[in-house]
């Protein structure tokens, strides 16, 4: 069974914004390898057909561009781990900022 290179697992974890501990990375190399191996069945299939999007034909609907009542800002930010008034608080955007 194929084992994924450590570097590749680390790259995907970065793309996924997911911190993995060293033991998780080792486990993931094996498990992802096994799962991806299962996907090789797909490549062998002749798929000369448009990709499916919906089971029932559906036309794109647009709502009228009219404001509707929505959650008050205070309620929308209530569940945030860090907030100030109506705003979400985030740490420095750039590395090394404070």
């Amino acid at each position, binding site marked *: 069974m194929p084992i994924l290179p450590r570097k590749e697992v680390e790259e995907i974890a970065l793309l996924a914004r997911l911190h993995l501990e060293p033991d998780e990375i080792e486990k993931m190399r094996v498990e*992802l390898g096994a799962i991806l191996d299962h*996907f090789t069945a*797909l490549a062998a299939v002749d798929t000369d057909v448009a990709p499916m999007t919906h*089971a029932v034909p559906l036309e794109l609907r647009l709502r009228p561009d009219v404001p509707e009542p929505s959650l008050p800002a205070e309620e929308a930010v209530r569940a945030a781990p860090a907030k100030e008034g109506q705003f979400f608080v*985030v740490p420095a955007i750039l590395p090394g900022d404070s």
Partner: protein
Amino acid sequence: MTEWLTATETARRIAAGELTAVKAVDAYLARIAKHDGELGAYLAVDAEGARAQAASIDAARAASAPLGPLAGVPIALKDVLVTRGLATTAASQILGGWIPPYDGTAVQKLRNAGAVILGKLNCDEFAMGSSTENSAYKKTKNPWDGSRVPGGSSGGSSSAVAAALCSASLGTDTGGSIRQPAAFCGCVGIKPTYGRVSRWGVVAFASSLDQVGPLARSVADAALLLEVICGFDPHDSTSLDEPVPDFRKALTGDIAGLRVGIPAEYFAGAIDDEVRSAVQRAAAILQEKGAELVDISLPHTELALPAYYVVAPAEASSNLARYDGIRFGKAAEGARDLLDLYQRSRGQGFGPEVKRRIMVGTYALRSGYYDAYYKKAQQIRALIKRDFDKAWQHVDVVLTPTTPTAAFRFGSKSSPVDMYLADVFTLSCNLAGLPGISVPCGFTTDGLPIGAQLLGKPLDEATLLRTAHVIESAVGLADRRPKGLA
């Protein structure tokens, strides 16, 4: 004992004044207090809120105000359905303590119909799993055998319904997560046509596959709940603007001339003998009642599993990007900067299966890989759907086993791929967007329930319910109850 009544009968008694909503709720709360410590179906019980809702139903009846079709019926919800003022965790640490500021559409519809919400039910984290073992909070047992899983991901829903810890429940089904646990616990579970029930206010897993549906102790109850939760919703862009039939009227018992497809692919290979014979007996019942059995082939069936395990993780990796430790849920302490906060909050908040699926999905969607994986899988979906379109020229419904085996033991699936195989018969239905139902059709010699699955044409839930009702009436298992819980 009012707890074993069907939802239909509970609603009738309350409307007729033979039972009060408060009494019905108190009976379930007492039963939850007695049995749920052992069973582990509930993540949260809203005793106070449920009593208040019940009291308002009783007051409405006393004032001769019009009552909804579920007035006073105690219902519980899988914890991926967003509930105003009631913690919603999706069985994940990352949403621990989140109190939503709104109700999802399906929940609103239940409330408008008079249903009383008892609480929230355990499931696999973010509905990813087939045994409910992936919950970050607790283990849920199968009421028929405490050493076995209740199925998943809606395992709390199936366990609570089978043990009469609620009158009926809602679950969600992305690859079989209503039908498989329904089969494992001896309940009726229906996944509607994609788009029938609004996904607004449902914690998203894989948006092109997710659907909400009921789990119940009878086909009539499933029809009643389904009728309430279906319907167009402008908040969900994939919601279908189609009339909702009176599903209860579909249960006529008349299936004369119905053409039932028996797909060879679902009866071959790794399937338990007792499961196969129970479903074959269900087929024989349908034939006796006037249906015609037609042998069919769905040749792309074996590709459903690999296609599903590309599409579902790909969409999950995108949907779960919203859990960033900023707007809701848990944030990691002491992050250096924004990227570090994202990575640590997600690393601490998600469990192993969710991480695996995010990784698989990110792998499949990254630049340069899209055509080989996601697009290819969507093309396979089109082929699977085409198989069914061809079948509908000859048959009205398709009959299969819901699962290859009855409920398995805790910890018995040694690898992720092993666990994925538990869903092998339920995935095509989601990939093709079709409606599907699981109905109890027998028991193994060990006393475990077996489910028969019926798949139908898009929007033809009525025929599924009618056919399932015929099986239910003929097998006569409705009064069988789990030992120690009767």
